[in-house]
């Protein structure tokens, strides 16, 4: 199957062509079969490649496709790299992707109040884009060079844009103010962007990061003369001695790309707004796969990053700060998907903290478990939305566990995993990151543990408000219903994965097998591997102590949430009233959007308008373009007038030409 790995990309592309060209005509049932089936086929091929790789003991294989362009010494070879890292990503992308495709076949059929099903009017378009995303993501992770990675990087960005703005004609929405009770003035919330605006915001913010990424790729080309991973990495140790500054610049520029794509400070602002897209999109692109591209990129480039320690530390710090920052915002969000979105930003921060301190395997581990449980949580939120006719404000929910037992139970499992509850998948991966962080710097660890507590708290805040207690909106509650088989199937499978995903990386210090560690070992340069393989200097006691701390913090967060939102719901309001400035600050997301708007967006728009009206309309359009066009058009008409249609004129003109030409040769 290794040599057929290109099929993983070809299948979804076939799906794109089929659904895009014929889908609308053939109806939503056919699309519902073809869309998921193509991803399943990819997954099967991926599993085949996985089995091959296992038999080869993880030896990487290049599968050349074709030389796209050869211009002088610049050759663009399209070639796929099948190695443990790319296969892991392929399995995550196609596996989780398949489940989400299945889920979407039901989710994208809307039920009206009387229970009639209406497929979305752009059902086929949705699956076309979703298939396109899978293909793009696979290009990103399977390419054996930075150019293909860049192409995939941009393609997933386009898909993200297309899918966030999928319901492009929906307006922006006001959010009801938060009532703090006891006559206190309600806290106003900023309105939510419309899907079209959100898509644009995501695209533009990502462009900022992409510029960095592109520059990084250019710098790799000028420095190493190649973009092939293997060729670049083999030169890195030498280059690290010759010109360490350049290497650091490369690492930094690539990381700027990751900041955009993986929503890290300061470029995280697009991800919460990306929730305007359909929920399967949020689960697939904005939680499980695309946003983790930055983590993948750094792990893929681990040779570069381990030779740029300064930048790596910067990555870790950005990750840690982002993790804490986003978690605090998530504390007060009232929109269920946004709670999860900030949580995604926060968890991505963990992953960057891990790869920043050199714990690449731990980063990939968390990436994988996060894909399971965060996709699960989003799909659970979607299931709730589906039942409540797109209501996503947790203040209108409550008591849903009775109406939607499967959604409730699976959401709990996802929540426990996210919170890092002992023995859940998220527990192992998060604990591993925290242990590595402790090794690098206890401060990072401190931030991580604090964030873990907050994570447990906000996750269960949402769960308790939405699923427990009394219904807050009787009408909604009465019409709520458990979702159908497709949605339940995806939820249950993902819940199982979220439960047991931890077996991929059991704690090595307890003598348990860390499967992922040995699996990923071949992708690290020898020497680096020793550090990455977990031969850390922490004693068994310390390891156990750290583990106990994270477990305690997780449980503590859940317990506090239980007290706040089940036992005595008056507490949080009272706290909000007494800490009102803090609450308002968090509810307004630290005013970062407003700050960016004032510092970048508005001046940018002003500049653009000035350019458009002054420079472009006057100078370029009327003088240069119109003027030149008129001039050239005039000349063209004059030239055409020479074309009289009379043979004698043509003969004469030809003869004049002959005289000039022969005269030249004669006289020289």
């Amino acid at each position, binding site marked *: 199957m290794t040599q057929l790995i290109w099929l993983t990309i070809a299948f979804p592309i076939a799906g794109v062509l089929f659904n895009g060209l014929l889908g609308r005509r053939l109806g939503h049932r056919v699309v519902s079969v073809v869309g998921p089936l193509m991803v399943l086929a990819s997954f099967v091929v991926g599993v085949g490649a996985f089995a091959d790789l296992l038999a080869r003991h993880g030896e990487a294989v290049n599968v050349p496709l*074709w*030389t*796209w*362009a*050869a*211009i*002088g010494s610049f050759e663009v070879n399209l070639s796929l790299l099948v190695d443990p890292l790319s296969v892991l990503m392929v399995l995550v992308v196609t596996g989780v992707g398949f489940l989400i495709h299945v889920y979407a076949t039901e989710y994208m059929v809307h039920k009206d109040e009387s229970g009639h099903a209406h497929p979305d009017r752009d059902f086929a378009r949705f699956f076309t884009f979703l298939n396109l995303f899978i293909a793009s993501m696979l290009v990103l992770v399977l390419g054996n060079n930075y150019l293909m990675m860049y192409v995939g990087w941009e393609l997933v960005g386009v898909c993200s844009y297309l899918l966030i703005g999928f319901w492009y004609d929906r307006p922006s929405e006001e959010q009801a103010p938060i009532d703090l009770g006891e006559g206190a003035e309600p806290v106003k919330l900023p309105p939510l962007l419309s899907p079209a605006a959100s898509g644009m915001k995501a695209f533009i913010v990502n462009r900022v990061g992409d510029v960095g990424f592109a520059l990084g790729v250019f710098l790799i080309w000028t420095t190493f003369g190649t973009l092939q991973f293997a060729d670049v990495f083999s030169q890195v140790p030498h280059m690290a001695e010759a010109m360490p500054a350049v290497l650091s610049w490369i690492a930094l520029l690539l990381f700027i790309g990751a900041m955009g794509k993986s929503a890290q400070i300061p470029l995280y602002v697009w991800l919460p707004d990306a929730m305007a897209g359909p929920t399967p999109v949020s689960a697939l692109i904005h939680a499980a796969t695309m946003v983790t591209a930055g983590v993948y990129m750094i792990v893929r480039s681990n040779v570069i990053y381990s030779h740029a320690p300064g930048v790596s530390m910067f990555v870790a710090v950005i990750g840690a700060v982002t993790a804490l920052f986003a978690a605090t915002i998530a504390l007060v969000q009232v929109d269920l998907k946004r709670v999860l979105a900030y949580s995604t930003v926060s968890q991505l921060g963990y992953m960057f903290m891990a790869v920043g301190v050199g714990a690449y395997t731990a980063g990939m581990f968390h990436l994988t478990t996060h894909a399971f449980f965060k996709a699960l949580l989003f799909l659970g939120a979607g299931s709730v939305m589906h039942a409540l006719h797109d209501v996503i404000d947790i203040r209108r929910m409550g008591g849903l566990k009775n109406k939607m037992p499967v959604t409730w139970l699976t959401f709990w499992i996802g929540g426990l995993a996210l919170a890092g509850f002992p023995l859940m998948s998220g527990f192992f991966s998060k604990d591993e990151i925290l242990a590595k962080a402790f090794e690098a710097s206890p401060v990072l660890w401190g931030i991580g543990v604090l964030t873990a507590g907050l994570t447990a708290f906000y996750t269960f805040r949402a769960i308790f408000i939405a699923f427990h207690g009394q219904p807050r909106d009787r009408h909604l509650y009465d019409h709520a219903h458990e979702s159908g088989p497709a949605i339940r199937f995806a939820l249950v499978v993902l819940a199982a994965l979220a439960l047991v995903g931890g077996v991929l990386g059991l704690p090595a210090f307890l003598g348990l097998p860390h499967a992922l560690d040995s699996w990923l070992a071949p992708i690290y340069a020898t020497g680096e591997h020793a550090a990455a393989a977990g031969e850390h200097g922490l004693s068994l006691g310390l390891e156990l102590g750290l583990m106990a701390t994270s477990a305690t913090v997780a449980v503590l967060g859940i317990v506090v949430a239980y007290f706040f939102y089940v036992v005595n719901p008056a507490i949080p309001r009272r706290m909000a009233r007494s800490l009102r400035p803090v609450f308002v600050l968090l509810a307004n997301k630290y005013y970062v959007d407003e700050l960016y708007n004032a510092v970048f967006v508005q001046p940018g728009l002003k500049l653009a308008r000035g350019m458009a009206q002054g420079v472009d309309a006057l100078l370029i359009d009327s003088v240069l373009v119109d003027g030149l*066009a008129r001039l*050239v*058009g005039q*000349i*063209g*008409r004059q*030239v*055409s007038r020479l*074309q009289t*249609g009379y*043979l004698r*004129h*043509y*003969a004469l*003109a*030809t003869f*004049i*030409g*002959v005289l*000039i*030409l*022969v005269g*030249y*040769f*004669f006289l*020289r």
Partner: protein
Amino acid sequence: MPIEIPTLNVIALAPQIVVVVTALVVMALDISLTDKRVVGYVSLLGLAAAAVVTFALLGGPAQAIQQMAVSDGYALVLNLVFIVTAALAILVALGYLDERELQHGEYYALLLFSTAGMMLMAAATDLIVVFMGLEIMSVALYILAAFNHRQVGSGEAGMKYFILGAFASAFFLYGVALLYGATGSTNLHAIGEWFSPDRGNLGDPLALVGLGLLLIGFAFKVAAVPFQWWTPDVYHGAPTSVTAFMSVGAKAAGFAALVRILMVSFDQAFTLDWQLVLAVLAVLTMTVGNIAALAQKDVKRMLAYSSVAHAGYILVGVVPATMTGVKGVLFYLMAYAFMNIGAFAVIAVLEHRDAIGTALSDYAGLSTRKPFLALAMAVFMFSLTGIPPFVGFWGKLYVFRAAVEANMSWLAVVGVINSAISAFYYLSVVVQMYMRTPTDETAAAPALRLSGPVVVTLALALVATVVLGLWPTPLVNLTALGIFG
């Protein structure tokens, strides 16, 4: 007195022979068959056979026949260009002629003879053979241009082409005579030998004027300024299926012989003498072709001027006199065959019987009436402009790169500026098709019918334009075989 019977190595001309024999078979069939379309399909079979023979020879050693012609990689690659051109043109004609009740067997015979002439020009290593090929090709084209006897425009096109063509042939032949007078030979290698630096014949005025006259003959055939005058009238007046064929085929044949003569007989120290002339011709041709195309309101006529401009781009690849340039020219010609014939095939569909329907306004709203047709046309327009990822982009890239490598970046810059100008008129077709609503007149026009062969042409041209744009490597590898034997 013993008579020495020359041994004829006919293998060298096997592809040409296959095409000629096909033409003869076609003529014979024409007498006995009532359904003339069969004749067209037989022609296609013959071309396929010629392609097979060409491929069989490709990669093998170059075979020569009496120092008259050679089957080297260069000739064989060009054979493929001509075969593709002829095959696509026949496919266009099958539908086009049917609708106009012009379906006659001799059309295909003439087209095949013309193709054989083109192939002979590419293979010729003697000026006399070049001239023979030129005339075989041209005479057939004169007739084809006038093929629509019901239309005055077609007859006028044939007549103009014939008279001006005869004019140009005369100059060419005069040039051959002068070169023979100076060098004592018409063989390309012998002439090259005579010019070799140690013989001290460089700068011989007689030979130089002979070269100048040769250049004029070719400049006429490839429609380079200032010898392009016939082009708009002939391309516009001739049946569209013929225009499609000659806009690519005659141009490719002209360049085929021109490049070989320049590279074999007038290379090295001699290069400087013609480089400047051709560079000036290239600039003039690109600029005049594009600027005149801007002012056209008729798409067929616009493409005629655009074809002049393309001659200019190809000249950019000739000027450096390097093998990179030659490969670029070969790539360009093949790319041009697909995208230009594709564009003319669209025109052929839109053109009504009485030669209306080619105006720019007739394309308004085509995307809603015939989405596939509009899409195909849009792709051809983008490709002709040189926008990636279509094959036309690589064609331009390769010829311009040859100029840059030869330290003639200024020529490439002129070429790129011209490409930008050309975007205006190519894209205006796209604008009409996609952003304008059909006029009342177009809406009232008879429904467009896509015949089977035209669909095949469009599909082939479209696939080639897109696939070779995404993956040019096979064509690059093919052109790399185009070396002189």
